[in-house]
């Protein structure tokens, strides 16, 4: 029985071979639970209570003058990797998981459903500095600071004639 022996010996090889050929990029659905990194930002930045008289980003950008003290509130949009800085967006803007056609968006904090010009107009940069330089550490993870968290920041405004607003922060309250 030549043919049956042949098949018996070859069947496993063929199956393995076809398996290799049919091998596809079957990415496992990665677990969405990502632990927050530990931030090395000094503790003195932490505000235990929300400061009063906070202004929204959109309003602050029209009112603030360079060098003026400010209390700013909004939602964390995105972080700068390796730097103690993040973008704060006006709370009136809806992130992708709240509004728009991409409610299952895996990165709703990028506000990809919002017009970029509108997003930029409603955003400011928050920086934690050591002297003149921004601290070389991640801000993410500082007392639960993460994407889309509501925060209130106290600091000094830096504005330019292009409508950009940077806040040099000396305190941050992260809403639980």
């Amino acid at each position, binding site marked *: 029985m030549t043919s049956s*022996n042949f098949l018996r010996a*070859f069947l496993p090889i063929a199956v393995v071979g076809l398996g290799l050929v049919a091998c596809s990029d079957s990415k496992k659905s990665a677990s969405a639970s990502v632990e927050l990194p530990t931030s090395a930002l000094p503790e003195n930045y932490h505000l235990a209570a929300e400061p009063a008289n906070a202004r929204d980003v959109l309003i602050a950008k029209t009112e603030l003058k360079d060098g003026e003290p400010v209390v700013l509130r909004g939602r964390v949009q995105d972080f700068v990797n390796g730097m103690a800085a993040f973008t704060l967006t006006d709370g009136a803007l809806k992130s992708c998981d709240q509004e728009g056609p991409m409610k299952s968006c895996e990165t709703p904090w990028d506000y990809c459903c919002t017009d970029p*010009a509108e997003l930029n107009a409603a955003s400011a940069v928050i920086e934690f500095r050591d002297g003149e330089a*921004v601290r*070389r550490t991640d801000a993410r993870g500082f007392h639960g600071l993460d994407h889309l968290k509501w925060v209130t920041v106290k600091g000094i405004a830096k504005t330019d004639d292009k409508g950009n607003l940077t806040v040099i922060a000396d305190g941050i309250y992260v809403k639980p």
Partner: protein
Amino acid sequence: MARRLPLDYAVLNLGRRPGRTLLAGASSALVAALLVATAAFVRGLDTTFQGAARADTAIVLSSVAERDVVRSTVTAGLGELIAASVRGVATVDGVACVSDEIHMGTNLRLGDDERVRAGFVRGVTDRAFLVHDAVTVTEGRTPRTGEVIVGRLAAEQLGAREEELAVGRTLRFENSAFTIVGRFAAPGTTIEAEIWTPLAPLRGLTKRDDSSATFVKLESPDAIGELALFAKRRLDLELVVIPSAVYYRELSDYFAPIRRLSWALAALIALAALFGGANTLNAAVQDRVRELATLRAIGYGPWALVLSLAEEALVLASAGALVGLVAARLFLAGSSVRIAMSAFQLTLDPPAILVGIAGALALALFGTAPAALRVLKLPVAAALKEN
């Protein structure tokens, strides 16, 4: 210790059916050559993108361009702005390593030939050579207004002969003629398939007052954060910073289906060769069944016969693989492949050769399985009587 058949027996067996041996050897040669070609193609594609990627270099482009440099538009003079605003930008002799560039796919004509060819043109300043340090002008000089330099693989990308892109020849695009004044190499990068011309005149010709992107070389990979911070501060410019390693990895990922398809085709052909080889060896055992039974009868164990069969298959596959490797070396070394708006060279390196040899030998071993099973189950008394 169990008696083993001498290696000579396996080798001499190959000479008993020269036609069959020749065909099986040719099959091994083809499989080895095919596997080497596939590995060289895939590795060439990979290394081309890896070559352009550098940990200390980042690309600043428009945040609305969806990471496509050709579609991106950034303000002219962005490089100067970055050099003045960002800490950690690398310098060479006091000159900041920032390169404003226009990247465009355009229709080209070579010399007097009216045939239209799709080519990739990059508008650059002298600073591009500070950032893209893989680039070396191998012939001629850097271009001025109305001139271009062409990459080593530009002819392949354009589907032209090398001599059509020789120094002194002309090419036309954007309704202007350009003289080729130099050639450059940038080994292992996509840049080699490009045509470079000065940025400012190209802006005029294309009626644009912006750049596509700015390439920035930093003092260390850590400084990419400073550049990203600059982009955040200047929200009005709508910029995004992508480390070049990430950018080129994403480009490489784009070609992943092509790589998978190449391996799948090679595997299918190898599988066909495997079945063919196994069938041939099985038939050889059938032909020699009395002889094998005799060897069993005089004291050789079934595993000695199986080992001899495996040696026979491996010797033949090795010889075939060597022929296949020589053929691959002759026909593939130095060859380049055109892909989209770029081209890359096949990488015929040790890993690619190893894939070819290992593949051919593995197929030979797997192909021995049916014949081995047959030998192991050989009824000696009956087989001795078989005609």
